[in-house]
């Protein structure tokens, strides 16, 4: 279980006064009644819930700047929220926080094909960017599975990925610029329609900062011309190891597929029962490979991937030539979460990344852990970039089930780190994984990251209680005296 910073009783007592001040700034956009506030008490990590003090829905950057400057002056915490689809609790409110909802800032401001970019407000959904440019043959590459709902502001905060990252990058590779409001209300432009920036590359660290450095009020996104041909291969294996070897061999052959997805038997069965995508019956694992590009290149790669798979022991390879079949194959992959959700009422979706070569070992160990904890876990996996999504299903109402599921999840993530990987590939640390940060980083590493946070938000008011295992006051970090590489607080207990 995770803990959040304790609410400030003074702020709690000033609720009415704060509501009045916010109404002066955003007259028609302040939510104070408890029933409505309950709608904002969690994001997609539903195991954690907390009603915010108040919620404000600004309409423009000016209002955001005024709200932040007010909160800064009055020492009130702010939690920004896009669509609330975070799987790591990135938008979990604090009891004494103003929840800053970006839902009303949902306009696409400019489509600039000459400079190959789109300028959008933060509340625009990921999918609507592609929708806006597809008639001209363009698209926006990052495609997190929540893309119909999740917003660009949230994508920037979390550096969201999707299934096409290996070839097209995460959000950070497709983000050209932002307008940012700092906690003190200052507005700042980083990047833009031009390449890079003159000074420090602050954009690169704002992207993925989980809403802790500033509030994005506008984003300039790179759009790409849609490749002329896309083809999908469905490859079945009777061992997990053969599937893993195929992935490694494809990459080693110099092929970068647009997507390369892995599903294990348990997941295949759940999906088949759920929406019947006609996956090969009895397979221990399947790979869904997608290749895009010029017709000749796609044909070459499809042939080479088929040959590689069969030399690694694939049982069958289906080349989805017609669009309907292609869509059906992907529908199964995209329904994986929903299908698993039918097995038990609750689910934890883990998100570690591992070196691809560790895949068979990690999957073996996960199934041992599954037995140990007595919980079902199935695996979907962005195999191309090594990003695992073990789905642990459980029933929250059964005593101890949540704790067991969390312990299971933590063991999986520790395993990922031990195998040379990381805690999170695309979902973010949030509140979910902050207690595990010590698995990857020393106290000194974390203190350096926290000092960066302090450079942007010296009072620690913006989305506090996320990412870092212990909450330090900036002044404490500044005064930390290091002797022989040891921090004075190294033995403090962790949450």
């Amino acid at each position, binding site marked *: 279980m995770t803990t959040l910073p304790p609410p400030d009783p003074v702020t709690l007592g000033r609720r009415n006064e704060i509501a009045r001040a916010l109404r002066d700034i955003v007259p028609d956009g302040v939510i104070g009644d408890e029933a409505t506030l309950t709608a904002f008490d969690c994001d997609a990590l539903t195991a954690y819930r907390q009603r915010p003090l108040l919620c404000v829905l600004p309409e423009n950057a000016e209002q955001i700047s005024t709200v932040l400057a007010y909160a800064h002056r009055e020492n009130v915490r702010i939690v920004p929220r896009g669509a609330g689809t975070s799987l790591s609790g990135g938008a979990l409110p604090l009891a004494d926080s103003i929840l800053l909802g970006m839902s009303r800032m949902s306009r696409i401001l400019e489509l*600039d094909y*000459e400079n*190959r970019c789109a300028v959008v407000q933060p509340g625009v959904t990921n999918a609507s960017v592609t929708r806006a440019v597809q008639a001209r043959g363009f698209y926006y590459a990052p495609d997190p599975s929540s893309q119909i709902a999740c917003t660009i502001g949230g994508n920037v905060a979390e*550096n969201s*990925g999707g299934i096409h*990252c*290996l070839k097209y*990058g*995460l959000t950070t590779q497709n983000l050209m610029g932002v307008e940012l409001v700092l906690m003190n209300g*200052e*507005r*700042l*432009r980083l990047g833009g329609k*031009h*390449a*890079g920036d003159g*000074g*420090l*590359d*602050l954009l*690169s*660290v704002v992207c993925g*900062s989980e809403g802790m450095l500033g509030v994005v009020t506008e984003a300039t996104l790179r759009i790409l*011309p*849609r*490749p*002329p041909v896309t083809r999908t291969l469905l490859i079945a294996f009777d061992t997990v190891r053969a599937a893993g070897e195929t992935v490694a061999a494809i*990459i*080693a052959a*110099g*092929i970068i597929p647009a997507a390369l997805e892995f599903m294990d038997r348990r997941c295949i069965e759940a999906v088949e029962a759920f929406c019947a995508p006609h996956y090969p019956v009895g397979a221990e694992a399947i790979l869904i490979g997608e290749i895009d*590009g*010029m017709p000749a*290149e796609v*044909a*070459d790669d499809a042939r080479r991937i088929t040959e590689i798979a069969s030399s690694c022991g694939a049982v069958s390879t289906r080349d989805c030539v017609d669009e309907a079949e292609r869509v059906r194959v992907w529908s199964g992959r995209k329904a994986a979460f929903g299908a698993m959700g039918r097995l038990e009422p609750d689910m934890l979706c883990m998100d570690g990344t591992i*070196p*691809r070569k560790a895949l068979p070992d990690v999957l073996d160990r996960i199934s041992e852990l599954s037995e140990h904890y007595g919980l079902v876990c199935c695996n979907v996996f*962005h195999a191309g*970039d090594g*990003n695992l999504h073990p789905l642990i299903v459980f029933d929250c109402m059964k005593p101890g089930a949540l704790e067991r599921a969390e312990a299971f999840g933590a063991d999986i993530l520790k395993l990922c780190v031990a195998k040379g990987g990381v*805690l*999170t*590939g695309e*979902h973010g*640390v949030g509140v979910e994984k902050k207690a595990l*940060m010590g698995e990857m*980083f020393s106290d*000194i*590493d*974390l203190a*350096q*990251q926290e*000092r*960066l*946070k302090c*450079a*942007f938000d010296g009072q620690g008011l913006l989305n506090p209680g996320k990412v870092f295992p212990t909450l330090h006051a900036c002044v404490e970090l500044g005064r930390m005296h*290091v002797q022989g*590489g040891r921090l004075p607080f190294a033995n403090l207990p962790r949450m």
Partner: protein
Amino acid sequence: MVTISPTNEAEIAEAVREAADKGTCFEIVSGRTKREFGRPVSADTILDVSALSGIVKYEPEELVLTARAGTPIAMIESALAEKKQMLGFEPADWGPLFQAGTGRATLGGTVATNACGARRVKAGAVRDHVIGCRFVNGKGEAIKAGGHVIKNVTGFDLSRLMCGAFGTLGVLTEITVRVTPQPERVAAVEIDCGPETGLNLMREAARLPLDASGLSYVLSDNGGTALIRVEGTNAAVAQKLAELQKQFANHETKVQDEGTTQKSFRAVSGASDFLEIATDIWRLCVPPANAYDALTACGIALGKFWYADWAGGLLWLGLPGDEKTAKCLREVTARFGGHATLMRASSQARERLAVFEPETPARAEITRSVKAAFDPKRVLNPARMFKDI
């Protein structure tokens, strides 16, 4: 000036700790090819990290390579070439621009100066390929950032922040990059045309789904030439070339073979056209669609000493490092967005003029705070980027 040459990260950390205690500072060097890039650093001691050299780990099937900061790029490229892989950002060798010879640039210096070449238009800058690093901050603490896998969002992305920071935030000691398979074939179409047409052609090519890996416009004796580079399997390149020739049928197109293409783009990335000309150099980044306006605003469209890369997003300008030029270029960036960098000039000029685009007060304050978060006593490359950081 005294030079110290630590052989490992612990020695660097100790040296920096000592300097922070004594209130002294360092100029960080490695291959010494780009010492003249940035504001002059007046340091007490040179911290030479070139002894931290060698590839630590290279796993071709994981597309990941880790090397110590002082490892020559040439060494990394030859290790990658053996496995038919490469650095996707096309490291630019700017050594010759500063009379520092060719092939001496190191990974650390390349990352610190964000020295990427023509392929940026397709594959992004150095920071898009750096996935982790180790560095020593200004307090002498050894810090790990990022990881060894391509997809990672664990904690703040400090390793990307190190890219292009010119060593002002930390001494890089080890860097992990993602690597890229070499394409089977690379070729380019060249089209002779005037500057305005050439700049338009490049953007038109950028809108085609050909994933062009180089879009440059260079001046030549008989005017200028747009170069459109494509890559992929043999069959794909043939199709892409055919598509380009069809698309630009109203121009005379010529296909460059692999060798010529490589030579052309090495020259573009390394700015070697400027080698023979003893001139100061500016790099101007603007939105590509404003490239021609930017040129004419400074009255240089018809001059000789410029060329364009990144579909017009980068303009290399052989213009003097003086107040008048600085003023003109910064009016351009104020008008269109972007930034102008004084890439080569006398140390007096680099001391006097803003080498990097001057920042707005709000941004300058953040830059100072970020510097203080990493190097509060300004031990590392003081004033290399901005006077007060």
